[in-house]
């Protein structure tokens, strides 16, 4: 199966694919992601446009054809199983009782049973924060514990 690829200056790229029976499939991919598909029924036939897709639609169609399409997952439901324990990400709001508190003073471990194993602040991750680590509003606490422990922790974090 041969694919011929050419540049279209100012527009994008053009791919021509030979299918069985002499039919040719021509795909024009624009710089902005727009995608046009033409079909030519042979060497001498003129192309007829069969599809005109936006960038998003083209990506979806591509992933269906690739067999890589899957429904995207709701991040709120995302948990990582670790035996009985699960990992969760919890954001600290400015009015949360944990904001501006040192980890040692919050007694999270004793009160709820979950452990804070890492903190994400802006784009850096602080692994294994020490007892004198001060929680700031906006921090994402990465916690490990059972579902019950997390439920207790949720009450603890929320104002």
């Amino acid at each position, binding site marked *: 199966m041969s694919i011929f690829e050419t*540049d*279209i*200056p100012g527009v994008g790229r*053009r791919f021509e694919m030979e299918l069985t029976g002499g039919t040719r499939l021509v795909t024009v991919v624009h710089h902005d992601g727009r995608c046009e598909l033409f079909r*030519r029924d042979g060497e001498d036939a003129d*192309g007829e446009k069969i599809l005109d897709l936006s960038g998003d639609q083209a990506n979806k169609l591509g992933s269906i054809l690739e067999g890589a399409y899957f429904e995207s997952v709701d991040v709120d439901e995302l948990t990582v199983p670790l035996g009985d324990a699960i990992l969760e990400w919890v954001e600290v709001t400015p009015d949360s009782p944990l904001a501006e508190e040192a980890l040692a003073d919050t007694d999270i471990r004793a009160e709820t049973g979950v452990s804070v194993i890492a903190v994400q602040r802006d784009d850096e991750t602080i692994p294994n924060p020490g007892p004198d680590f001060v929680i700031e509003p906006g921090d994402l606490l990465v916690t490990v514990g059972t579902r019950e422990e997390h439920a207790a922790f949720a009450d603890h974090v929320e104002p």
Partner: protein
Amino acid sequence: MAGALLLEAGVMFAAIAAVSFLAARLDLSPIPFYILVGMAINEFVLGRYGLPYVTETAFVEIGAELGIVFLLFFLGLEFNLERLLADRRRIGASGLIDLGVNFTVGFALGYLLFGGAVAAVVFAGIVYISSSAVITKTMLDVGWIANPESGPLLGTLVFEDLVIAIYLAVVGAAVLGGGSIGAAAQSVGVALGFLLALALFVYVGTRALERLLSTTSAEYFVLRAVGTTVLIAGAALAIGVSEAVAAFFVGMAFSSTSFVHDLEESLAPLRDTFAAVFFFWIGLVTDPFSFLGVLDLLAIAVVVTLPAKVISGFYGGRVYGLGDRRSLRVGLAMVTRGEFSLIIAATALAGAGAALPAETAQTLYAFTVGYVLVMSILGTVLIQTSGVFERYLPAGG
């Protein structure tokens, strides 16, 4: 602050936007419409009837200049030397047929009409260069992009793009330079020196440009790209080198960085805006009544140069092994002339006086505006109605 100036700019942009509806409705390239609307509201038309008209302010002038710079910047950015070299035999052959036929015909005709070698070279450039932008867009609209005729068309246009960069460098310098052969030779020397420096910059500057553009901020990215391009183009013009060619080289330098795609995305709106201002400006400084003086020139040029393009395009298609029908399509498509012819005429007008008599430059300019109006509309229509002409071909083509 200038209240009246802002109003004029508003009128200009609104007029440009208004005619885009008309172009879309008629399914034609908007370029002739931008020119016509500029012409309709200038001092020669509205002003003639004592109505308020739009004047050629410094803003419009510099906007038009930026239009030229961005048009050529994009040409350089999308100029793919590897592709040209990979298919050099066919592109070279069809490009040389195109150049040989049309430039020669243009030069001979220009010499007959104007009687001077410089004017003839300018005229030859104007009638030789087809419009990459309009032809590519029309090809997409009618679906030819999926057909074999797109090969010779895109190949020939790439070849023309390269020729026009060299042509503008040499002719721009010769016209902008002095009157005597010595002065012209000197300015061509300066131009070639500057371009050699730019070519070197293209060759070694990739990493510097890469660093220049590495930022996560879209705002800084655009500003740095624009700053680099406009500064170099402006410096070129200040020392008498075509700003268009300098912009082309800057585009080429950027084309080897990893930011080509981002540049296209972030600068395309700027290009579209200022290119429209450029076409509007062309109309704004043109007196439609000056066409009356060049109607005979126009008629002769259309009658001679239209078939010349059809024939050269036809044989260009032959080089790619196409049949009669598709070869004819290549010829019909190449008829469209546009932005580059106008850039050549504007360059000639700007540098008139020494190597090119001012009066000749004026005549050439008026001619070019009329010629582009005719050829851009005619060329687009020829592509859309090619079926009519294909029927006249001998059967089996």
